[in-house]
């Protein structure tokens, strides 16, 4: 397994290089020159030239040791992302945003997974009944409602009308207070799609011979569902769950924006809209690394839950 892990870690090098190349090409070649924007309205040509000098936009793109791509590559490898357009160190921004983002996405993630897997077991067991049909109907309805509607509805009724939650972030609230409602909304909005997926996975298992055998042998429902069905359904569950973990780091764009949560989703969308290439680059790079690492963890988990899978 060690050799496998090392080999997979080595695969990350071309992947990360590809990501760096892609972000560079997208924002430097396709995105165009941002000097004019940094210079502001009515800037003189000399100011624009000076900005190009300061940010290194006047350097060759590729074919030089001091080229823009090599500098871009170096800053990524050393995790020295420099300063954002507002002159704040990028790493400081990321560190500050991680906490609020994770405070929101982690409970959302666990809430959605635990509730949807549990309910999926139940509805799969009562497959074909009115409860199952109702669950599918509710899931489809939930998936059809735009995410924004959940947010607007939740914010208006639960926070404003009924006063159960605060409407918006305020520094005198605890983190638990200001993420509670957006996390709840995230869970409710995420249940439909997840429940349908896990229900399908459970149904596939329920129809297996070993389940029928287990019931025939007289095992109780709880034991069959939680010990056998759930364990055998773990491969697709792990694939979906572990690969979702890197995205927790990125936060939730809409929820963070509507509830004023100073997380990384908010940071990222701000960076995209203001073309803060330096922040986008840092976030993309870190996300890519996390994604590769969690992909590896997924594969390792496969071998732990399914003896048929071996890592060679």
């Amino acid at each position, binding site marked *: 397994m060690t050799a496998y892990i090392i080999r997979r870690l080595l695969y990350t090098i071309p992947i990360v290089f590809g990501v760096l190349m892609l972000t560079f090409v997208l924002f430097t070649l396709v995105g165009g020159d941002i000097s004019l924007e940094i210079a502001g*309205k009515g800037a003189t040509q000399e100011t624009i030239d000076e900005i190009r000098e300061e940010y290194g936009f006047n350097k060759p793109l590729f074919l030089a040791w001091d080229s823009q791509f090599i500098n871009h590559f170096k800053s990524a490898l050393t995790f020295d992302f420099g300063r954002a357009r507002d002159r*704040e160190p990028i790493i400081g921004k990321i560190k500050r945003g991680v906490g609020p983002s994770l405070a929101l996405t982690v409970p959302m993630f666990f809430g959605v997974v635990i509730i949807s897997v549990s309910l999926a077991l139940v509805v799969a067991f009562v497959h074909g009944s009115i409860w199952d049909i109702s669950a599918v109907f509710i899931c489809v309805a939930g998936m059809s409602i735009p995410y924004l509607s959940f947010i607007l509805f939740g914010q208006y009724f639960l926070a404003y009308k009924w006063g*159960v939650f605060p409407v918006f972030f305020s520094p*005198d609230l605890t983190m638990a*207070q200001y993420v509670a409602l957006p996390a709840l909304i995230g869970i409710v909005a995420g249940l439909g799609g997840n429940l349908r997926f896990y229900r399908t996975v459970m149904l596939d298992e329920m129809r297996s011979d070993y389940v029928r055998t287990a019931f025939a042998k007289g095992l109780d429902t709880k034991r069959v569902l939680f010990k056998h069905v759930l364990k055998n359904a773990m491969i697709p569950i792990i694939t979906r769950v572990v690969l979702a973990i890197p995205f927790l780091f990125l936060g939730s764009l809409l929820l963070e924006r509507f509830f004023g949560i100073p997380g990384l989703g908010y940071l990222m969308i701000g960076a995209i809209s203001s073309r803060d290439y330096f922040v986008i680059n840092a976030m993309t790079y870190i996300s890519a690394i996390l994604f590769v690492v969690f992909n590896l963890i997924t594969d390792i988990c496969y071998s732990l839950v399914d003896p048929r899978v071996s890592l060679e």
Partner: protein
Amino acid sequence: MMSILKHKPILLLVGLIAATFVLAGCDSSSSDKDSDEMVLRHALFTKLKGLDPGNMRDVYSVTVASQICETLYQYHFLKRPYEIVPLLAEQMPQISDDFLTYVIKIKKGVYFQDDKCFPGGRGRELKAEDFVFAVKRIANIKYLSQNWSMFDGKIVGLDEFREYTKGCESEDDVDYAREVEGLTASDEHTLVIKLKKTWPQLVGTALADIATAPIAKEAVFSYGKDIVSHPVGTGPFVLKVWHRGSYVELVRNPKFRGEPYPGEGEASDAEAGYLDDAGKIMPFADRVVWTVIEEYQPAWLLFLQGKLDNSPIPKDNYNEAITETRELTPVMKQRNIRLKKFLDPSTFWLGFNMQDPVLGSNKPLRRAISYAIDRDKFIEIFFNGRHLVAHGFIAPLMDSYDPNIKEKGYARYDPEKARELLKEAEQIHGRALPELKMAIPGTDSFSRQLGQFLKRYVTAVGLDVEVEYMDWPTYMEKVNTRSAQMFSSGVRASIPDAEDFLGMFYSKYWAPGSNRFNYLNPEFDRLYEKIEVMFDSPERKELYRKMELLVLEDCPAAFLNHRVVFALHHDWYKNYKPHAFAYGMSKYRRIDMKKRAEYKKLLKTIK
């Protein structure tokens, strides 16, 4: 099924999670905790970019920074028309007979806020040299200030200083002691400015602009690039907390000298209660708080909850707040909410690139597009009928606004005339007119609706138009590189003088300068160079109007609307007189604490 439901742990788990969220989230909130303090609470609709006055142009950063840093002059809080008055200056400047030398006495006894950048942490006295430093810093090319165009070619020796900075390695290597002939401190409290040519707007533009507000040089050198989050000024408030992107909190500056609330204003000010605090020492508030709220729904809900003192009216909530007669609805009145309506010195348009081979040489085509747009309908649909039709580009708030401009008919909706002009336009073009492209900044629903509206009216008279929606940076690049054919845009004047509007058509300011139309009219240029050095007079006002007509005749844009602001505030929010050039206003504001407390009780009865 029942056997499954007997396994209560699942249900318990779901219940437990729900209960956890409710308990965690319980709104034990916020503003109750500061009931003894006078706190101003506002929303910012975009994130702050930085609080370094020398390098900021966005209105939100200026709004916050102007509570911390002060300028030599300011516009009077109550008097209308707007009148420039001293702030850090002792008096109005002494101007030489040739209008080229300004001698400005600085107030004594003004101190910078305490900060660890000073020896012993105690702020020192403000000196004339601090203003010299502020302007030289803007001139320093390594500092990359967005404000340099304000001073370019204006002050004796300053351009040479800028040339010198080009040879420096970095921002820190610049020697600020290097002499600039036209910018000196003749003594500790006297600033002398020598101009290359007459600059009538020096006081109203540059010396009342946050860009020239002194920031302690000790802080600049001590904090380096982090100065953006450590503004050390002389103003009534100091920065306490800045959670970037979400929250800013200022507290009263204990070293602030104290300024008396103005005792004079317009005739109606006494009746409106704006003179109730006359002579009292400002600031009144203990703290000022801004929360960054980029979506309108949460801002509106917080306002209704009494957690914000004032609010604009979101388009979607307009009917909830305002009746058909443009007054407050009974629901708002029940909450003791007040409405303020005021003119904003702004103009919006659909611009034409005059260097475009199709549009630039075809005046009938440009005029046809202008006649094709129903501005009344536009204002009704997009602004609930609140805005004014822009018959020209000088905003009605300006002294030089021509009250008869409407009669000249440049902005009328006349599709028949548009169709006639299009026939003429085709003859000039020599063949069928090609599809035109319209650049709209933004990809949100408002931008798309705007694009669809303009397209609908322009295509109705027989033109083909493709609307291109793009993010702001892409849009800026397109306009700045003169590659946009038609573009939706607007401007808001920064001073109560129409020069800002006229400068948009001066040929030396072609894009990326402020003349984004790339308009060229030698007669206009000649007049612009004349008015640029003229002091305010009836003659200059006439020239302004003449220049406006020159532009309207050439039609480099279809001018659409002037903004009229409808703003709401709670009745506890005092001294909220609309001010079109409203910087550093928090010191005037006061909270009626009793009324604020009453609102909380009122809310319970409404709910």
